């Protein structure tokens, strides 16, 4: 056992007190500008993306493959009565991934008929703007969809722009960013 039972009981008591006091505290007003991000895992890469660019997060439903689909397009799926074109984000970013189907589906706010399938959603992050750096400072991480880099709590994640991805997949097929998924 890493922690004794007394410590766990104290921890439980602390959590209960925090939960109880949260109802009594006034709404927090932060002076420094913050952004709400979503830490995700796409293939073998870990990224962050603005939560404001997501319309919703869904459990990846059954995907119906399309014949002669473009690269990164897994198929179409039905979400809340609407059909969505589901792209594999790792494939779009050119990152290696496993054959297993992705678990989560990110519906883009720019075009709610397009969803990006990712392997995992690591966390919801509310970070300060000072923790976000322009990607130009990191030449080795050059990616057309990553314009900024998040450095938060000792770890760095490229900041993806879903709008750029939506624009990329909506462009004609000749301008597709990556090859077709095997």
């Amino acid at each position, binding site marked *: 056992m890493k922690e004794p039972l007394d410590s766990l009981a104290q921890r439980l008591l602390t959590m209960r007190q925090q939960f109880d006091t*949260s109802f009594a505290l006034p*709404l927090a007003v932060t002076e420094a500008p913050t952004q709400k991000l979503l830490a995700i895992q796409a293939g073998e890469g870990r990224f962050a993306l603005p939560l404001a660019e997501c*319309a919703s997060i869904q*459990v990846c439903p059954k995907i119906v493959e399309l014949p002669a689909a473009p690269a990164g397009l897994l198929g179409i799926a039905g979400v809340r009565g609407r059909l969505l074109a589901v792209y594999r984000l790792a494939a779009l970013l050119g990152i290696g991934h496993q054959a297993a189907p992705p678990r989560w589906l990110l519906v883009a706010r720019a075009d709610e008929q397009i969803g990006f399938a990712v392997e995992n959603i690591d966390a*919801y992050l509310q970070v300060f703007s000072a923790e976000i750096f322009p990607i130009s400072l990191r030449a080795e991480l050059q990616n057309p969809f990553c314009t900024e880099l998040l450095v938060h709590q000792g770890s760095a994640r490229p900041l993806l722009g879903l709008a750029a991805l939506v624009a990329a997949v909506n462009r004609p097929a000749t301008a597709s960013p990556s090859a077709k998924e095997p």
Partner: protein
Amino acid sequence: MFRSLTLGQQIAAGVLLPFLLLLLALSPISYSNAVAVSETSRNVAHAQTVILRVSELVSNGKDIEIAQRNYLLTGREEFVSAYRALSEGQDKKFEELRRLTADSLDQQQRLDTMRALVREKQIETLEMIEARRRQGLTQALQVHNEGRGAHTIEELRKLATSMTTAEEEMLQKRSNENAIASRRAILLPILCVPFCVGIMVVAVVFISRNLSRQLGTAVQHMRSSAAELQAAAGQQTKGAKGQAATATEVATTMRELVSTSRQIAESAQRVTGVAADTTAAARTGDHTVQGAQEAVEQVKRQVDRIVAHMLDLGKRTQEIGSILDIINELAEQTNILSINATIEAAGAGESGRRFSVVADEIRKLADRVGGSTKEIRSLIEEVRAAATTTVMVTEDGSKAVDASARQFGEVAASFRRIVDLLGNTAQAAREIELSTKQQTTAVEQASTAITDVAQTARETEASSGQTMETANQLATLSQQLIKLIRSSERA
């Protein structure tokens, strides 16, 4: 043959032989004389009896005559009765005389004549009695006078006298014969005794010479035997001394052997006691080992139960992991829902701000749940690893317990073998003890026997000395006897 007889037999033969010869010579003669004397005596007695019976017959006839006359004179019937009784007695006397004179024809003829005369007289008497009874005395006297009564009585007297004379002559003749036999019986011993004395003298001389010769030979033998006896007694004395010394040494050795045997018996008895104690201790050890073996078996069963429980614990941890997966899934979904709520709140503008706060709290809770599930999973993994380690260790312990059980079984078997071997040892020790006791008893008996032998050897030594002395005396006696025999021979 005569030499084979003993001295007593020879003397008896020398004395008895003449007597036997005399007896053989005199016996037939004496017997014939005795028979003749006896026969003569019997004949004399017989003749005297016949004379007596004839005399009685005559006397009886007189009595009859008297009874007849009395009746004639008195006429009283009592005389008739007396007459009849006397007549019947006379018949019996005739019969007896006839039996006594059966060997003499002359006497038989005289008796027949006398009988006929008596019959005639009786008839005449009866006629007179009838005449007296019916016609009176006169008529009866007439009958008497007419009869031949007087003549008959005279003839009867003559016949009786002749019978008596004949018997007396016979008696005289036999008396003469008896006298001759008596003289012969007297003369025979007178003639035979000198003859027998002569035979006895000859026999005594013969026996004396024979005895002198035999005694000389025997004395010579006795002398040589006495010498041999002296030598043998000397050797016997020497041997008895050596035997006594040897027996004394053997008796000493036997006493030491008895002492040693007793010590061995005591040692064997102690060994028996030690073996019995060891057997008891080994049995106690066997029981202890059996108890330990049962305890080890109990431990093995407990270890098996622990292994089963640990395997069940591993299975339960897997189930907890599955439940944690569910909880983690729920936390993740809650987190996603809170994120979606945040997204929706952000889209609602200022009105969604409060909703956004609630969504943040929900998300935080979901994060905490996720973190807790991770911790629980870590703990479960640790528990599973510990359970696996415990199972492995317990299985090793179970194997060790199995090995211990087998070793305890081997130890128990060894103890049982030890108990069996100790039992055999105790039995062997008891047999050794018993055998040693028997040996001690036997050695004691042998020691006693050897002591007796030593005592006997000493007594033999003393007896040999006496034998030596006796042999010397015997030699001296034989010398004296030889001198005596030679002097008698010279004489």
